[in-house]
C-alpha cells in the first residue's frame, strides 16, 4: 500500500530524512516514532505531497508520488500536527470546501459530515454558526480529523491526532482507527504518547536523525530488547539517558 524507496529530504546542508526505505501493507496501523527533529513530520509531508523529496521516491496505492502526485493525494488523508484550519470559516463551510476539493457532491458531503458530527458529539449549530477561530482546540481537532476522512481515503496519516482531544474523544478515536484498519485502511500514526502507540499499533517504526532505527511489532521489540515498555525502549534507542536523574537535578534548582 505504501512503499518508500530511499526517500531523502535535505534542507541546505541539513539532512532531515536520510534514504528511508519501508513497505507498509494495507490494513496495518503503523506507529511512526522518533524524537523531536527526527524527520517524522518531514516524511509525512513528503508522503502527502506537501514537500518534494530531494531524492528517492515513494508510491501509495500503486501511484508514484513524483509522477502521479494528484492521484496519490486523492487516496490520502492527513491530519497535520499543526491542526491548521482557516479560522474565519465556520466548521461547516470548511468541511464543505474540503469536500469540494475532492469533488464530493454536496449532498454526499452533507451526509458524511452529519455522520462525523454524530460520531464526535459536535452540535450542528456550532458547526454552522461559529467560526473555527472560536472553537476549542479539541473541537478544532475533530474538524481536522473529519476533513482528513471525509473522502474516505484508503491511506491516512495522523500526526499527533490526539492533541487537544478529551479522554472520551481520544478513546473513541482510538477505536475508530482500529476499526478503519480492520476494514483495510492503512494508518500511519505519529505520536509522542507511546503507551497509546503501544496499545493501538500493529507495528512500530522508530527513526532518528532521518534514519530508520527500528521496525517491528511493539510487543516483540520490547521483548527482544528487554526494556519492559515501549517508552523505555524508545529512550534507550534515541539517547534519552538518565532522564529521571536530570529531572531531579533540575527540580532542585527551584528550591528557595
Amino acid at each position: 500500500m505504501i512503499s518508500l524507496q530511499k526517500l531523502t529530504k535535505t534542507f541546505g546542508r541539513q539532512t532531515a530524512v536520510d534514504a528511508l526505505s519501508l513497505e507498509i501493507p494495507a490494513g496495518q496501523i503503523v506507529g511512526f516514532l522518533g524524537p523531536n527533529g527526527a524527520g517524522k513530520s518531514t516524511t509525512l509531508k513528503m508522503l502527502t505531497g506537501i514537500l518534494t523529496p530531494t531524492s528517492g521516491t515513494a508510491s501509495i496505492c500503486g501511484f508514484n508520488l513524483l509522477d502521479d502526485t494528484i492521484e496519490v493525494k486523492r487516496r490520502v488523508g492527513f491530519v497535520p500536527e499543526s491542526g491548521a484550519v482557516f479560522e474565519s470559516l465556520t466548521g461547516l463551510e470548511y468541511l464543505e470546501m474540503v469536500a469540494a476539493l475532492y469533488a464530493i457532491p454536496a449532498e454526499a458531503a452533507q451526509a458524511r459530515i452529519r455522520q462525523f458530527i454524530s460520531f464526535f458529539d459536535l452540535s450542528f449549530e456550532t458547526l454552522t454558526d461559529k467560526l473555527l477561530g472560536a472553537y476549542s482546540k479539541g473541537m478544532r481537532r475533530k474538524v481536522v480529523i473529519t476533513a482528513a476522512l471525509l473522502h474516505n481515503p484508503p491511506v491516512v496519516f495522523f500526526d499527533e491526532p490526539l492533541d487537544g482531544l478529551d479522554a472520551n474523544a481520544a478513546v473513541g478515536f482510538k477505536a475508530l482507527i482500529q476499526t478503519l484498519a480492520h476494514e483495510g485502511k492503512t494508518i500511519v500514526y505519529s505520536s509522542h504518547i507511546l503507551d497509546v502507540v503501544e496499545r493501538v499499533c500493529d507495528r512500530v517504526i522508530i527513526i532518528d536523525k532521518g534514519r530508520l532505527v527500528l521496525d517491528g511489532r511493539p510487543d516483540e521489540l520490547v521483548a527482544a530488547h528487554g526494556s519492559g515498555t515501549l517508552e523505555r525502549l524508545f529512550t534507550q534507542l534515541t539517547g534519552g539517558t538518565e532522564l529521571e536523574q536530570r529531572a531531579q537535578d533540575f527540580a532542585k534548582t527551584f528550591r528557595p
Partner: protein
Amino acid sequence: MSAPAIVPPPPPSPGPAPSPKKALHKLFLTLFLRGRSARGLQKQGAPQSVGSKLALTLVIYAAVGLSAFAFLRKPVFALSLYLHATTLFFLGMFVAASSGEVLFNRDEADILLHRPVTPQALLWAKIGVLVQVSLWLAGAFNLGGFVAGVGASDGGWLYPIAHLVSTVLEAMFCAGGVVTVYQLCLRWFGRERLDSLMTLAQVMVGIAAVLGGQIPQLLARFQGKIDFNVHSWWICLLPPAWFAGLDDVIAGSRSASSGLLAIVGLIVTAVILWLAFEKLAKDYATGLQTMSETAGAKRPKEARRRLLDTLSNRVPLRWWLRRPVTRASFLLVAAYLMRDRDVKLRVYPGLAPMLIWPFIMLIQDRGSARASGVSALSGFSVAFTGIFLGMIPLLAIDLLRYSQQWQAADLFRVAPVEGPGPFCDGTRRAVLLVLTLPLLVGVVLLISLLGRANAHLPLLLPGIIALPLYAMLGCLRGNAVPFSLPSEEAKSAGRGLKMIGIMMASGLLAVAATLCWNYGFFKWLLLGEVFVVAGLYLPLRASLTSSRWTSLE
C-alpha cells in the same frame, strides 16, 4: 462520543460533482473579505472587519474618481491616460501590499497542499480574487470616468465599454505582473532567500506604482514643453498609455498610434499572464513548499542579533531602554523588523511608496532649480520632506500592530504588567531608532547632495521636533501593542488614500513652515512648536503609562 462507526464509501452519484476551482475561488474570496483569523466570533460578526473597510474605501475611491470630470471636452486619450495612471497606482499599491499574504501563507501548506489540487489551480484562484477585488477598486474609481468619457471631445457611447475592457486588462496586467516578479525572483535567486525577495519585490512594485502615478503630474508639468500625446514615440514605454490607447482606438480618435499602443498593451499583458501562470508556475509551487518547511533553510543571521544585543547593552541605549518591559518590547519589534517575513512584508512595502514621495519632491525641485539657474532647493520641498518623514512613525506603529502570530501577544496580558504602556513604548522606540533615524540621516545626506551649501536644511527641524509627538500619537490609548492583531485587519485597500491624507497634511504644515521661514518668523515657529509638542507629549505619555488592559473579548 457515539460508538465507533465505519465511514462508508461515497454514494454512487447523488448529484453533480462540485468544481474544485470554484471552491478554491470561493474560499480565497471569503478569506480575503473575512480575514484569515478569528477569535470568539460568530459567523455574523466576521466580515465586518475587512468587508466594511473595503466598502468605505470603494465609496471614497468613487468620490476621488469624480476628478475625471475635469477632462470633459478633452481628448479621450488624455482622460484615459489620467484614469489608467491613477488606477495603476491604486491597484499597484493594493496588489503589492496584499499579494504576499494572499499568495504565500504559512498555514495554508498544512491545509491545502495535501489535497488533490495543483499549484496552478491555487494560483489561479488567488489571482482571480486579487483581480476581482482590484476590479471593484478600479470600478469605483473609474465610475466618474465612464461618464466623463462619453462627454470627451472625441468620445461617445462606446467609451464605457472600451474603458471597462481596458480596465479589466489593466487589473490582470497588474496582478500578473506582481506574480511574475515573485516567480522570477524565486527562479533567479532561489527559495532560500524567498522572504527577503518577497519584501524587495513588494517594495519595488509599490515604488513602481507611485512612479506610474506620477504620469498625470508629468502631463500637467510638461504640457507645452514635451509633445505628450498619443503620437509621441516614447509614450509606448508607459504602461498606462497602452490601456489608454485601447480606449482611444475603440472609442476615441481611432488613430493608428492608439492602435499600436493597444497592441503593445495586449501583447505585454498576454506575455505577463503566460509567464505568471504557465511558464513560471512551477516556481510558485516551490515557493509554497518553502512555506511548509519546518527545518530552517538558512540559519538566522546571528550577527544581527549580536548587534542589537550589543547596542542595547551600551550607553545611551542602555539608559534609554532601562525599563525591562520596554526594552523587551523594543528588542522584539527590532528583531521582527529584521527577521519576520510577515512583518517585513507588511511594513516595508507599506512604507516604501510613502517614502518615495519626499525623494520625488526633492528631485523634482532640484530639476526646477536647475532650470531656473538656482543652486539650492526651495524651502517648501525641504520642509515638506521633514514633516512627511515625521509622520512615518504613525504609519509604522500602526502596521506593527498586526501579525500572523497575533495570538502569541496574549503573553503580554498574562505577564505581571498592569497595562499596555511599556509594550507600546518599546514599539515606539524601536520605530524611532530602527526605521526613522536611518531615514532622516539618508534625507539629510540627499538634501546636502542635491543642493550645494543648502541654506534650507533647518527647514527639516519642524518635522524632527514633532517626531516624538507623532510617534506618541500612534500609541494613544495603548493601541500600539506590537503584533497583537490579526494581519487581515491591516488590509491595505485604503493605504493609497491614507497616503494622500498624510501628504495633504504635510503639505499644509510645510506651507506654514516655509512662510515663517520667508518672513523671518522661523525661530519663533520652532520655539512655539517646542512648547506645543512638549505640552502635548507629556500628558499623552502620562496617559499611555496609566492605560490599563481592556478585556479581551
